[in-house]
């Protein structure tokens, strides 16, 4: 489109302005706004802890933090992808009336939600220290997980956002998928619970599960992620990046007509 590239400084400026305006609109730049975005997963953690800690938490060290990390990461993924999926329609006027790479609308939406996620992960670290987990060098790698999770949310959002204007009911289908994903991801149970059956191998195809596993190893165990996790993350991100970019660029020229 008019020879614009993603690396044009004007695109980066637009990305920043769009992300900041959406963030301000969410009223989350205030202390209480941030608090509410953390209270949501915290409430779920409370419920899950009460009901599942005896059944699934037995033998899991720091089960509360284990749950918290899983819930914070899942909540970010679900919120970021759901909101960004709708972004081309939420910012309909920009999609229909202005000329710039439309992926900027989707990515800016993901960024605005990821700001809260980064703060929530920081709160997780503070809670972990307060609950007796000693500081470790591995904790310094947690921002890498945040970045990887942001990228994962971007790829999935791009994939969904370019289909959404043409098939609005994909929102309903995706909400069902997210509910299934919550149970298919070891958030309140451990991977060992799945035994050695095919479900265990399905985890390798679940990049969110790999990310949650990575952050738990870094924060709770104080160790680096396993090679399997790293390979799973690289493959998952690479494949999704390729697919979503191709699909988005195929649909992009028709977006202004259909929103």
């Amino acid at each position, binding site marked *: 489109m008019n020879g614009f590239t993603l690396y044009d400084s*004007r695109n980066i400026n*637009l990305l920043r302005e769009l992300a900041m305006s959406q963030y301000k*609109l969410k009223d989350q730049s205030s202390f209480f706004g941030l608090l509410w975005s953390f209270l949501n997963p915290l409430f779920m953690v409370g419920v899950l802890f009460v009901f599942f800690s005896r059944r699934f938490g037995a033998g899991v060290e720091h089960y509360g933090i284990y749950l918290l990390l899983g819930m914070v990461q899942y909540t970010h993924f679900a919120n970021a992808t759901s909101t960004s999926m709708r972004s081309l329609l939420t910012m309909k006027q920009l999609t229909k009336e202005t000329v710039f790479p439309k992926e900027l609308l989707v990515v800016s939406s993901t960024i605005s939600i990821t700001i809260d996620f980064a703060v929530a992960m920081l709160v997780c670290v503070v809670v972990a220290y307060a609950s007796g987990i000693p500081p470790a060098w591995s904790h310094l790698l947690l921002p890498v997980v945040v970045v990887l999770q942001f990228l994962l949310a971007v790829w999935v959002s791009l994939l969904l956002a370019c289909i959404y204007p043409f098939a609005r009911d994909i929102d309903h289908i995706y909400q069902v998928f997210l509910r299934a994903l919550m149970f298919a991801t070891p958030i309140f149970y451990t991977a060992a619970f799945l035994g050695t059956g095919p479900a265990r191998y399905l985890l390798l195809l679940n990049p969110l599960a790999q990310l949650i596993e990575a952050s738990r190893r870094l924060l709770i165990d104080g160790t680096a992620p396993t090679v399997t996790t790293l390979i799973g993350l690289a493959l998952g991100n690479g494949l999704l990046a390729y697919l979503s970019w191709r699909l988005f660029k195929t649909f992009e020229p028709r977006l202004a007509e259909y929103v």
Partner: protein
Amino acid sequence: MSDAPFAVRLEGLSKEFLRGGRRQTFFRMLRDLTDRNPQNGNRRRALDRIDLEIPRGQTVGIVGENGAGKTTLLKTIAGLYQSSSGTITTHGEIALLAGLGAGMVDELSVEDNVWLYGAVCRIRRATIRARFDEILGWADLGAFAAAELRTLSTGMRTRLAFAIAMEIESDTVLMDEAFSAGDKRFQEKCNRFFLAAKRVGRTFLVATHNLEFVREFCGSTLWLHEGRVRAFGPTAQILDEYIQFEEK
């Protein structure tokens, strides 16, 4: 910028739209993608085989009744719509101003909106920073920088959006009814801008119902009728024909 004598050249440009009304569902999308004989009959032709060459450095008015294809033409040239057939050749960077103020947010302050709309108009951050006070001054909003945009009148918002859009540096600017709102003072300011722009030699394509503006600032005029070029030539001649047609 290249040395081509034209800013925009259109050859056999057509644009068709699917008639709306169908609810978009995932199932329908899949069916359309796999359908070997898609139903092409339910289409509306908005632009019909347009051949046109817009010389560089001119301000060209586009007139025509509602639904004549003015906005579609601008959006197709800008690349916002995919053409159905024909070719578009452009030289230099093109900016589209369709829906002045598109992207400005009511709940944000005037200052925030200057940065945001400036970015949407693809104006460099350094330019906005350097021209920030002039932008607010031109819009007579120097005292309103911290006010929420929603507290401003329609006229004030139009002034703000236009003041920002004036900083666009593209070689060719496509404008769709960008200055139809606003009081006499605003119109005079806009006129001064176009006079200055004319001297610089930038290309403007302006779709408007404001025939006074066209007569005063546009060297040539394109008259679109039902998606086709009805006439293109010197403004005085085309406007006379258009006004006669309208009066009938």
